[in-house]
């Protein structure tokens, strides 16, 4: 039923596609995470001049499809002479840059909301305690709010990371040869549906489970305090004191 020679023969192409997919995912997630921490702090700020622009940004980006955002950057900007004449065109003419920019802008919006939500969920007592110790606002964020918010955001952020991984398939529409594009080319050249899309599904499965596994490990390490402590009985706790 399955023509294994097609699968084996196209494996090098699939691995090349995997490299593109992984690289796109890594640079998009990394830049998105870096940008979204300050943006999340601005988003929960009581100062409307800080909070409102970030609200508008996440609102617009989360309200439009990623495919449209990528098309505006890749196809749309190429139509504007002003951009084509500028130095920035050296970047925008590269499909890589366009895909990275679109993905980073998109994941930043979602991650900002995730971290902002975790910041808002900080127990009031912790903030009051920090203030009563005379901590400055900066210290409050650095030592109390952000460390616990980033931990609390982990489970939600893992969803965003897996979603982003699946979304990288959209890069195949702007000439990048990622996993999905390799599958479509194998399909077109060998007319082998199961071989092409079955193989790529296995690749995505392994990627998804690896990502989830990494986040599980991270949660075990950084969210230890939220797990039920079954191995410690009250009596032990007393003795330990």
């Amino acid at each position, binding site marked *: 039923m399955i023509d294994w020679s097609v699968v084996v023969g196209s494996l090098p192409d699939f691995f090349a596609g995997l490299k593109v997919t992984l690289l796109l995912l890594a640079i998009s997630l990394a830049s998105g995470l870096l940008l979204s921490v300050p943006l999340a702090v601005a988003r929960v700020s009581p100062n409307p001049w800080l909070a409102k622009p970030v609200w508008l940004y996440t609102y617009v980006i989360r309200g439009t499809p990623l495919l449209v955002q990528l098309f505006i950057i890749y*196809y749309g900007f*190429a139509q504007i002479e002003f951009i084509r004449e500028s130095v920035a065109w050296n970047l925008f003419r590269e499909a890589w840059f366009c895909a990275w920019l679109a993905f980073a802008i998109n994941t930043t919006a979602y991650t900002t909301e995730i971290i902002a939500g975790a910041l808002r969920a900080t127990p009031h007592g912790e903030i009051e305690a920090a203030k009563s110790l005379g901590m400055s606002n900066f210290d409050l964020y650095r030592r109390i709010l952000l460390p616990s918010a980033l931990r609390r955001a982990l489970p939600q952020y893992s969803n965003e990371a897996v979603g982003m991984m699946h979304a990288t398939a959209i890069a195949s529409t702007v*000439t990048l040869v990622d996993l999905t594009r390799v599958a479509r080319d194998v399909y077109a050249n060998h007319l082998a549906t199961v071989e092409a899309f079955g193989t790529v599904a296995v690749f995505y499965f392994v990627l998804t489970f690896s990502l989830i596994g990494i986040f599980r490990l991270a949660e075990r390490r950084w969210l230890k305090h939220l797990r039920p402590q079954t191995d410690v009985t009250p009596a032990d706790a007393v003795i330990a004191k």
Partner: protein
Amino acid sequence: MKSLARHLLCFAAAAISVTALAQAPEWKKIRIGVEGNYPPFSQIAPSGDLSGFDIDIANAICAQLKAECTLVKQEWDGMIPALNVKKFDAIVASMTISEERKKAVDFSDPYYDVPSRWVAKAGAFKDATPESLKGKKIAVIRNSPRAKFVADNYKGSETLLVNKETDVYMELTAGRADIGFGSSVVSGEAFLKKPEGKGYAQVGPAVNLGAGAGVGIAIRKGDDALRDKINSALKAIMANGTYKKLADKYFDFDVSPNRK
């Protein structure tokens, strides 16, 4: 019980094969796969209406055969697989008859034949030999004889494989490619004659791929009855002037496969 069930199964199988046999050679209903991104052969209006030479030829064949036709829009890279999984029965999408494709599908007689051409900014290239295109980026539609031709002969150049023919000219004007390789008619009629094609020109002579095999209608392997019907309809519309009338709608030159 068991043998009764077996009898029933046999009967059902026989019934199915009888109806299949009874329907297939009639071809009163034909579903035709078209592409829509290959003006002036095939294009989609903002309203969603399909038009173009491919579309008119498909409709003319159906009228000739007195068959009821449904046009099915399909993206280029899934065209042959979709035919083979019976999403439709024939492809009328400017598909060049090639040896590679003949391994997967059968073709009708050619219904038009036009060469390929290089297009670039006017004056950018004197000719389009592998030497003069060394290190340059060539835009060409993926999974096509043209892409194969470029891959085989222009090893010193970079290739930008695009997903549809119109993207060749879009990437060219955007500056993402230095030169485009496409259908002479698409580049001539849908690009160079349009405002966006201003300042661009054809480079070098016309290129005939596939030894002038032309463009045919693809059908599933073994659907000989359908192929014969399509071939006879093609002959009829070429003889009765319908073909010329349709071609004149789009072209001021001869695109017929039999021209000298």
